[in-house]
């Protein structure tokens, strides 16, 4: 009778270890759930991914640890033959991502201003590192600026899986 609970406990622990090992695996283009970071070590965590619709959600965590902000977006992994019929087999395929964050005033890092940002780009394996990376271009729009022509900023960012 006592052996059964012990066996269950061992099984439970084994399962738990399995789950932890699965969770600890860095995200990839095909299995994007997990943490990705930019070169400044800010983190984008993809927490949900609906493979049927491509919808993703999660959060952006500031590198300073001063706050996190909700993220929504899409992944589209249309197979090569569906969108470029003439180019299938000879062209280039990448999973495409877009991530949208709203920077709220509450919990914002000192100096941070409310704004919205969209990152858009491709996810593919970096042939040099052998790891997945999301290469993006981004636009950020800020509600309050000195002049009308400086609301929108742009730049590029590479996100790599956090080990």
């Amino acid at each position, binding site marked *: 009778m006592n052996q059964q609970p012990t066996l269950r406990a061992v099984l439970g622990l084994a399962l738990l270890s399995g789950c932890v090992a699965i969770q600890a695996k860095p995200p990839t283009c095909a299995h994007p759930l997990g943490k990705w970071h930019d070169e400044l070590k800010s983190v984008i965590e993809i927490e949900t991914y609906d493979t049927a619709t491509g919808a993703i959600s999660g959060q952006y965590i500031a590198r300073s640890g001063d706050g996190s902000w909700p993220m929504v977006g899409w992944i589209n992994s249309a197979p090569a033959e569906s969108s470029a019929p003439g180019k299938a087999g000879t062209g280039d395929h990448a999973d495409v991502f877009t991530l949208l964050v709203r920077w709220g005033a509450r919990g914002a890092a000192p100096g941070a201003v409310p704004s*919205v940002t969209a990152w858009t780009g491709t996810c593919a394996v970096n042939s040099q590192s052998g790891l997945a990376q999301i290469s993006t271009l981004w636009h950020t729009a800020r509600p309050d600026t000195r002049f009308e022509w400086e609301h929108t900023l742009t730049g590029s960012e590479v996100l790599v899986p956090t080990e």
Partner: protein
Amino acid sequence: MNKQIACSAVLGLALLNVCASVAAKPPSCIQPVGRWENVRGSVLEIRNYNAATGAVSGQYISNSGATGSHPIVGWINSAPAESSAPDKADKGNHAEVITFAVSWGTLGGISAWTGTCAVNSQSSGREQISALWHTTRPNTGFDWDHTLTGSDRFDPIE
């Protein structure tokens, strides 16, 4: 008894008319729920706006290549001018900011627009969304032509 029913019906119809007229009102930067159209005749329909979180969702009906409607998600940030630029309030420039993204489903690709919503003082004098967009396609001839970019303007549909 019959009078009560008739009265209820009239009241119901009146309420329905009020609701219909509210729904028919064109969207604005502050109340963005409704239909917005770009210069190519594509329609951004914002169906839900959560003023507390800034979350928006709805659909995009493209008139330039992609047929049908496609789901959108995004954010609006309407932080008041004084909260984010204390020393610039009154003399700076304020606009609501919006970002939204569309997944083109089986057509392949995603697009994200980011920009401002404000009165166009130079032309129409009406509110409009001015946005820059990026479109990324999964399948292209080369590895350097996945991402396209451009600009868009959306006007409220009456």
